[in-house]
């Protein structure tokens, strides 16, 4: 069968809603795109542990402590599920880690913003997890089986994350004036970066068409962003705090909120590595990787020596 025929048959399967499994024939570009996207997603989970981890030792109550610890731990789990899904395509976790550390692989830019107050933990849960859920629910139906299965598991576990974040915000907004100001300040700083999480506008997103065709994506960046705005603005109103966008208003004709222009220059600056925390995030991952090297080696050496012992006993 010619490559063209194979590709046609592959596309037919996807169009028919069939899932693609790791050992199935797939176009090289499909494989590469998936490795890139899944590993980028995994890296986002792992790097995403850092800004929230920044507050684990400083939670205001014990109840918040266990909630936050469990959440950040879940992110490690989610990174692990996603790395495993990518590994079915013939890349090792170590290779992916190296790509992250050398800057070849990207992760979600939102995690290059600092967490400056306790309210940021609430804002991240509410806005960042809120935005992520919109994306992830779509991905549970993606065409690549291992990715879709990982997303199902992740979505199930993540359902508490956003509620946790919103509960933190709600408690702050029902608290003292100082607490409410803290919540507003967090919204001010996290609103626009959260809006940027859906990626460039459709006309500047050349990969979207192919991704939609392969059912990696089922909605465009702008569609998802609009969905996020429509869901989130009423939630902000319920809290009694204001989205920092003077142009935000309900458009009766469209049945959607209109919103102001995103600062795409800032977006690209952060993507390129010039965000407030890019260096620190990678440095922290690099340190964990370097500090853990001897531990990983020791565990392998120990297992090897145990295996040798058993074998020499049998012989």
């Amino acid at each position, binding site marked *: 069968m010619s490559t063209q025929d194979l590709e046609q048959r592959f596309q037919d399967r996807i169009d028919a809603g069939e899932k693609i499994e790791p050992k199935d024939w797939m176009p090289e570009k499909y494989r590469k795109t998936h490795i890139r996207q899944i590993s980028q997603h995994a890296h986002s989970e792992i790097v995403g542990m850092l800004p929230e981890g920044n507050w684990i030792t400083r939670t205001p*109550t*014990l109840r918040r402590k266990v909630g936050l610890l469990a959440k950040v*731990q879940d992110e490690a789990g989610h990174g*692990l599920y996603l*790395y495993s899904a990518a590994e079915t395509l013939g890349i090792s976790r170590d290779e992916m880690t190296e790509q992250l550390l050398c800057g070849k692989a990207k992760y979600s830019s939102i995690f290059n913003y600092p967490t400056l107050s306790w309210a940021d933990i609430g804002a991240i849960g509410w806005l960042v997890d809120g935005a992520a859920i919109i994306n992830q629910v779509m991905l549970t139906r993606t065409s690549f089986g291992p990715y879709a299965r990982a997303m199902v598991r992740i979505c199930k576990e993540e359902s508490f994350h956003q509620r946790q974040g919103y509960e933190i915000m709600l408690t702050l907004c029902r*608290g003292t004036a100082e607490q409410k100001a803290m919540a507003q300040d967090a919204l001010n700083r996290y609103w626009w970066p959260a809006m940027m999480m859906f990626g460039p506008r459709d006309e500047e997103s050349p990969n979207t068409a192919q991704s939609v065709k392969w059912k990696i994506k089922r909605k465009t960046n702008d569609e998802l962003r609009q969905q996020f705005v429509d869901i989130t603005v009423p939630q902000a109103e319920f809290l009694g705090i204001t989205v920092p966008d003077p142009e935000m208003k309900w458009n009766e004709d469209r049945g959607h909120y209109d919103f102001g222009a995103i600062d795409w220059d800032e977006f690209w600056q952060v993507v390129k590595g010039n965000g407030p925390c890019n260096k620190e995030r990678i440095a922290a991952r690099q340190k*964990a990787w370097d500090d853990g090297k001897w531990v990983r*080696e020791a565990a392998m050496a120990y297992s090897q020596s145990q295996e040798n012992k058993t074998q020499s006993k049998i012989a």
Partner: protein
Amino acid sequence: MDVSLYKYLLMLGDNSMILGHRLSELCGHGPNLETDIALTNISLDLFGQVRSLFQYAAKVKGGSATEDTIAFSRTEREILNVILVEQPNEDFAHVVGRQYLYDIYHFLLLEALVGSKDETIAAIANKSLKEVKYHKRFSGEWLKRLAGGTDESQQRMQAAIDHMYPFLDELFHVTEVEEEMRAQGVGADLSVIKAECYAIIDDHFRIAGLQVPEHPPRVSKGKYGIHTEKMGFILSELQFMQRSYPNMQW
């Protein structure tokens, strides 16, 4: 209020809290994802125990006390954890060594407390015992793996044990509060635990190929609220929110 019982609960809870805090510092920084997740599980177990113990302590204290006022509003001198658990995460071997020594003690202590005449303490001990059985397995396995891994891991593990072991003795120092609790059948008899604890540890060290450190016990008075220079930094993080924004709901 029953001051001795209250203080006894603080001693139990503070050890779990400060050790849990040290482990929580590692969340997101472990040697790989699997180990990171495992360490966080232990931290979560410990904070769960802290909550049970401090909720009970708040009841004993009465008034407006809550688990959080107890955790976050006491001064350093009023915090009664042993020096071992506040030792920093120097490297993964130190984390394992500190955990292993505490786990063996903790397990034996809880086994004794399951028979406490105080029903709440007995119930908390019973629940915690299952968790700590797992902690002990985790730290014991890693102790063995690091001691029997590479030359580097062997050296690091030995160095960590050399550092941590002299703090073990403080765990068995009997304060007045502990003596009173033992006499009432509420607390554990530390002298019984002590012999067993050292026997298990020394035996495990031999099997793992680690030298039992000969260094004499370090003078440690954590149980009296006299801590190391690190403690102020632990508390400045742990209590940051409650100190900066007192009397608020979170």
